[in-house]
């Protein structure tokens, strides 16, 4: 059979290239453009080299929000991944309750982000909110607009409520795809419930968990809307995460150069950490 070559086929890929160009490459290059120059308006630009980058990297505020961001994301991953996995393991595999459970679990994912923020904002209010009032009723002083710890507690709880569902759904999908024969073989082999989890379910969920961790990492590292609505970064700047810091610099201070440099550093951190997670979790797969 004779193979035919027709390079015109490349035109079919063109729309994709164009889309990528307009929605990521061009905006990204604009940011790069701002990050190495100084502007005073009137479309006048002056070359400033790596000055903005140096400024951002030595900025104490940036270090602090980065630290807060890492702690927040770490907490979120530590809670949501095991919790999501545990809930998925408890869910029924067949029967009429499957769809009920799935709908209930998926519900938080359908709520718009700023609505999530408002909901928890009202719910955690110490005087009229259900949660805030209940905690205070237990004799614990709780006011997230004044106490950093209370603010952190509310923010993390909100994120757990909002996003654990995603981990549950991913893990559940992974669990139901394990063939029955594995469980039957384990039963015949006399494996304990823990062994079934450790040697069958966990290894089979490896890929799904990798994806869940990556998604949750990226999303929580970029969290903005819910937190800005809930605490606005406060009290003080105790819940000011990277994205909030960035928006304040770019829009509040109108420091376009440093903000652009900030954006690029932010992007590179996420890219690097995502790569690191992926490489670590996929290690040994090629063997």
């Amino acid at each position: 059979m004779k193979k035919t070559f027709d390079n015109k086929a490349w035109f079919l890929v063109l729309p994709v290239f164009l889309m990528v160009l307009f929605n990521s490459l061009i905006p990204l290059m604009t940011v790069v453009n701002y990050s190495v120059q100084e502007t005073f308006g009137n479309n006048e630009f002056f070359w400033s080299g790596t000055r903005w980058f140096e400024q951002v990297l030595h900025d104490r505020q940036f270090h602090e929000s980065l630290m807060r961001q890492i702690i927040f994301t770490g907490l979120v991953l530590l809670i949501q991944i095991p919790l999501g996995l545990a809930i998925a393991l408890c869910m029924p595999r067949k029967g009429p309750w499957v769809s009920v459970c799935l709908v209930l679990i998926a519900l938080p994912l359908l709520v718009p982000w700023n609505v999530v923020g408002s909901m928890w904002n009202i719910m955690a209010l110490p005087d009229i909110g259900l949660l805030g009032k209940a905690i205070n009723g237990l004799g614990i002083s709780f006011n997230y607009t004044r106490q950093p710890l209370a603010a952190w507690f509310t923010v993390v709880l909100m994120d757990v409520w909002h996003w654990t569902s995603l981990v549950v759904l991913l893990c559940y999908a992974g669990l139901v795809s394990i063939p029955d024969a594995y469980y039957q073989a384990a039963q015949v082999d006399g494996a304990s419930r823990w062994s079934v989890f450790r040697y069958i379910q966990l290894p089979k969920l490896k890929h799904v968990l990798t994806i869940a961790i990556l998604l949750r990492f990226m999303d929580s590292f970029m969290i903005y809307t819910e937190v800005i609505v809930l605490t606005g970064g406060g009290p003080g700047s105790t819940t000011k995460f990277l994205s909030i810091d960035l928006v304040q610099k770019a829009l509040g201070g109108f420091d376009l150069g440093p903000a652009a440099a900030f954006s690029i550093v932010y992007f590179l951190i996420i890219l690097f950490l995502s790569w690191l997670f992926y490489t670590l979790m996929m290690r040994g797969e090629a063997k």
Partner: protein
Amino acid sequence: MARISFHDLAHAYGPAPSSPEHWALKPMTMTLEDGGAYALLGPSGCGKTTLLNLTSGLLTPTKGRIEFDRVDVTHKTPEERNIAQVFQFPVIYDTMTVYDNLAFPLRNRGVDEATVATRVKGIAGMLDLSSTLQKRASGLTADGKQKISLGRGLVRSDVNVIMFDEPLTVIDPHLKWELRSKLKELHQRIRRTMIYVTHDQTEALTFADKVVVMNDGQVVQIGTPVELFERPRHTFVGHFIGSPGMNLINCDVRDGKAVIGGGEVATENAAKYKGGARTLQLGIRPEFVKFSSEGLPVEVTKVADAGRFNIVSVQAGNQPLKLLVPQGAAIPSGSAKVAFDPARARIYADGWLVGDDARGAAQ
């Protein structure tokens, strides 16, 4: 080691059905002797895997009892029954080495490491896995993985019964022969009850001492391969076993004599027919039909070369019939006459062998 008996055992997926045809496994009573090599043979969906899973305890029967050595185990778990089972598709523990995979059933039961090492090495040697023992099990080929599954089934020395659910489906043909003879050899050495589920008659007939033929949720015959061939109790067995299968010709029985197309045919059991059947058939294997000067008039329609034999297709009236004629023997063309070996020609009423009292045992 155990003698396994089923008492009025039946299973339905879902609630107990009202009409008999909805049972996945229809009520049956049967005993498997201790140390026997049994094969459950039948087409897909005939209930053989259901019977196997009931035996191993992965399913709880809708009704009836299962006994191991007269002890009721109907509601016991697979672990309590102390059985081993190998599944159709390889099941391996991905994160473990081959060695750990084979050792898993032993370690779960608290066997000491020295014994584990001897057992695992013995089984690995038998299955040609010795060189891969320290490798990760997930890196092996499908063949290798299924060998691990087999090995995990065989590694324990104290099991009551070892069950194989079409274990060689994913194995290459040349390895199939080898593994099957290994299993047979192993059975002769350890003399443990083995049940082998398959839809392949060659596999069943070469592995088993006794074959349990199943069709449509019921056991139609239990017998040695020779019995199944020479004296099928049901037309299904005659048709399913043998290549080509048994000839079945619609006939009539008058005064204890079989009648086909107006001519009488001598049979082994027509005299035992007591009447009342909806369909009457004469069954005879192609091996026992001969061209002759006297007998049933037929038209020769096709001759197929099958190596040592020719398979000759003929029409008797409007009914097809096959003969096996040794290579080199003369084959008439056009009109001819065929005769049946009277000791091998049998009458089947509604599918069941006429005058066969042992029929109840299989039901």
